[in-house]
C-alpha cells in the first residue's frame, strides 16, 4: 500500500496557473518553493527552475499579448526519475525563444545591452529546451536534471 501510494505521488503532475500579470511572479516562486519542499528537491534545482520560469513568464506577459484581456499561462511540472520535465503553455502570439540570438557578454560595461539576457538565462538553467506551436498556443518544454 505504502509503495503504491508513493508511486502514485511520484507520477502526479503539478500544475501552476498564472494570470498575465507580473505580480504573479510572487505566486510562481511560492508555488515552486512548495513543490520543491514537497518533493524534496535540492534548493539549487528549485532556484534554477525558478529563474528559468520567471524569465519565460516575464517574457510572455511583457510581449506575448497584443490585447489587454486576461490570459492564463499554464505550467506543468512532472518528476520522472532524476529529471524534472516542465511545460509552459500560453495563448499569446507565436514566439520561439530558441530563435533569440545569444547576447554578447564580452563587451565593456558601456556597450553592454540586456536584450536577450532573460532567454539566455533560460538556456543556461535547463538541460533541454524545446518549442512547439500547437493549436494556436506556444508550448515550451524544459528538462532539468535533478542533481
Amino acid at each position, binding site marked *: 500500500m505504502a509503495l503504491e501510494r508513493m508511486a502514485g505521488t511520484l507520477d502526479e503532475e503539478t500544475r501552476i496557473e498564472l494570470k498575465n500579470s*507580473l505580480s504573479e511572479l510572487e505566486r510562481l516562486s511560492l508555488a515552486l518553493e512548495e513543490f520543491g519542499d514537497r518533493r524534496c528537491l535540492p534548493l*539549487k534545482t528549485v*532556484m534554477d527552475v525558478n*529563474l528559468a520560469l520567471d524569465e519565460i513568464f*516575464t517574457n510572455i506577459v511583457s510581449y506575448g499579448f497584443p490585447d489587454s484581456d486576461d490570459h492564463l499561462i499554464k505550467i506543468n511540472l512532472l518528476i520522472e526519475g532524476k529529471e524534472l520535465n516542465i511545460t509552459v503553455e500560453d495563448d499569446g502570439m507565436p514566439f520561439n525563444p530558441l530563435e533569440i540570438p545569444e547576447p554578447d557578454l564580452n563587451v565593456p*560595461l558601456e556597450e*553592454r545591452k540586456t536584450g536577450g*539576457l532573460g532567454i539566455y538565462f533560460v538556456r543556461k538553467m535547463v538541460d533541454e529546451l524545446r518549442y512547439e506551436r500547437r493549436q494556436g498556443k506556444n508550448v515550451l518544454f524544459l528538462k532539468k536534471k535533478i542533481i
Partner: protein
Amino acid sequence: MKIKESKSGAVIILDLNGRLDASNSGVLEKKLTDLLGAGEKYFILDFDRLDYISSAGLRVLLMAAKKANGAGGKEALSSLKEHVREVFDIAGFTAIFPICSTSEEAAGLF
C-alpha cells in the same frame, strides 16, 4: 523587495531585501533614476539580504552603472549570496561591476 537608503559621505547605500524581479524592478529603477537626477553618482548596492535576482534586476543595475559612470561616479555591489552571484557570473556581469564581499569593503572603493 524592500529598499533601505542611507548615506555615508558622498556615497548612497541601498540595502535591498527580498526578491528583485520584473514585478518590482521598476521601483529600484525609479529610486536610482531619482537619485541620479538629484546629482548623486556614488552608489553601493548591498545585496546581503537579497535572495533572488532576474534579468529585469540586472537591466536596472546596468542602466544605473552606465549613468553613474557617465557622471564620473561609480556603482559597487556587495555581499552577493551564492545563487545571486551565479546569475551575475552567467550574465558576465561579474567582470563589469565592482563586487565586494562586504559593504564596508565596498565603501573603501570610493
